[in-house]
């Protein structure tokens, strides 16, 4: 986090894009956008544009990765070379490896893997455009795509980050806030029966006090609940349309 003194990110109590501190960026969710995948989702969160495909439960290749008692969940976070300002070299870098790991772990905690021994559930995530918070956008989309694929889960995952910029905590930071800010805290929550139960993903880098950190958790929970409602709407809307067609 550099050059923090030079850029002012909060002017007259508003953020650079006019948002309030606890305001999300606009979110757009479309379910079932890919024909070949078992489940899919396209999601926009501000300027982030991500698409997720879920394949499975299906046979695991290579075979030695099979688990005789439960399904193996795989998660591949991949950024398109054109997704960022300076072209990203294709293929996994260390950042993608780490994001894939913690995101997979978040989903593993809620997918009912025990129902599918020896099989694999693959979640492929492509970031078409990134603008801070892409891992949270991807998890939101992945959670919807898993529902679309009919994978049994204990609940949903909704994910959002909180940043500290100019000494203030802000929800769902965009690129400038992430880059010049003092801290970035991505969260994902496990939501069941319309209630946040626990934390599925938590990372943080920057510098905050303990009290600020606790405040950030509350803020993220609030934002995640709003995202959860949009995820639910998106899933419902797909099936509403289909059932009307059947009636005709």
């Amino acid at each position, binding site marked *: *986090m*550099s*050059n923090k003194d030079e850029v002012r990110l909060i002017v007259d109590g508003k953020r650079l894009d006019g948002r309030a501190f606890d305001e999300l960026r606009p979110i757009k969710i479309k379910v079932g956008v890919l024909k070949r995948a078992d489940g899919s989702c396209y999601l926009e969160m501000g300027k982030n544009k991500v698409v997720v495909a879920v394949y499975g439960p299906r046979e695991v290749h290579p075979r030695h990765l099979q688990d005789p008692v439960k399904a193996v969940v795989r998660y591949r976070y991949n950024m398109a070379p054109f997704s960022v300002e300076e072209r990203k070299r294709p293929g996994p870098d*260390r*950042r993608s*490896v*780490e994001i*894939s*790991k*913690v995101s*997979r*772990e*978040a989903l*593993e*905690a*809620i997918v009912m893997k025990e129902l599918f021994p020896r099989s694999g559930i693959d979640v492929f995530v492509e970031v078409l455009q990134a603008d801070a918070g892409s891992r949270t956008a991807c998890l939101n989309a992945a959670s919807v795509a898993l529902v679309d694929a009919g994978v049994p889960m204990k609940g949903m995952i909704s994910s959002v980050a909180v940043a500290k910029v100019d000494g203030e905590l802000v929800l769902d930071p965009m690129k400038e806030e992430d880059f010049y800010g003092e*801290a970035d*805290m991505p969260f994902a929550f*496990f939501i069941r029966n319309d209630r946040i*139960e*626990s*934390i*599925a*993903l*938590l*990372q*943080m*880098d*920057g*510098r*905050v*006090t*303990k009290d600020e*950190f*606790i405040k950030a*958790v509350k803020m993220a929970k609030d934002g995640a609940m709003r995202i959860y409602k949009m995820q639910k709407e998106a899933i419902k809307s797909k099936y509403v349309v289909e059932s009307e067609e059947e009636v005709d």
Partner: protein
Amino acid sequence: MGDDIILDIRRDYVLGKIRDGERIDGRAFDEYRKIEIETGIIEKAEGSALVKIGDTQVVVGIKMQPGEPFPDTPDKGIIITNAELVPLASPTFEPGPPDENSVELARVVDRGIRESEAVDLSKLVIEEGEKVWLVFIDIHALDDDGNLMDASALAAISALLNTTVPAERFEIGDDFPLPVRDLPVAVTSHIIGNVFVVDPNKDEENASKNFITVTTDSDDNIVAVQKSGSYLLDEEKLYQIIETSIKKARENRKLLKEV
């Protein structure tokens, strides 16, 4: 297969003990194993440290060389952190390119040092926009008896404290000690059943792979957090863990001051 059965027995033993409010090695839930820090062990490196936490051993070596700065930070030196889980450290480590565990280890250690601004990177500029010092932090695990994370983080900051910038070797002035201005300390808690314990040993790690690492700076600020493992973390427990991490970090930081 035989190994699996032994692992199962050990797991039951660990979990049974925890249920009784005890740990298999007799430690309290918030107690570290004995920590030993030895610095300057590799003469060829600019800085180095061997850290032992119980039977876990990690060596960190610092190498430095001049190089080009990043375009967006022309006035700052660069830190590059890498971790190698070499096969000699554990029967489960395999040779080859870094897997996700070593990538995560390196990145979490890196974040603690970077975000606490432990190294004053502005003092590592040779020629602004052209040439700066690159600081390579290489983490070399020697023996993994659990909690490589905290051992690596301690070894990294200890090695940095012990580092001399090799300016003379590159004919750019006099050698000077690396400017280190903060002491980030990582504390890893291991969530096992309904409780959490700090500084898990290998048997505890084998019983559950659920961790959270909280790194704090000298002013008790939180500078890095990483939840690691496929589990769901209770919010109240998180706050307890942070409380404990700050307390334990203060204790471990005292050892660093003696370095």
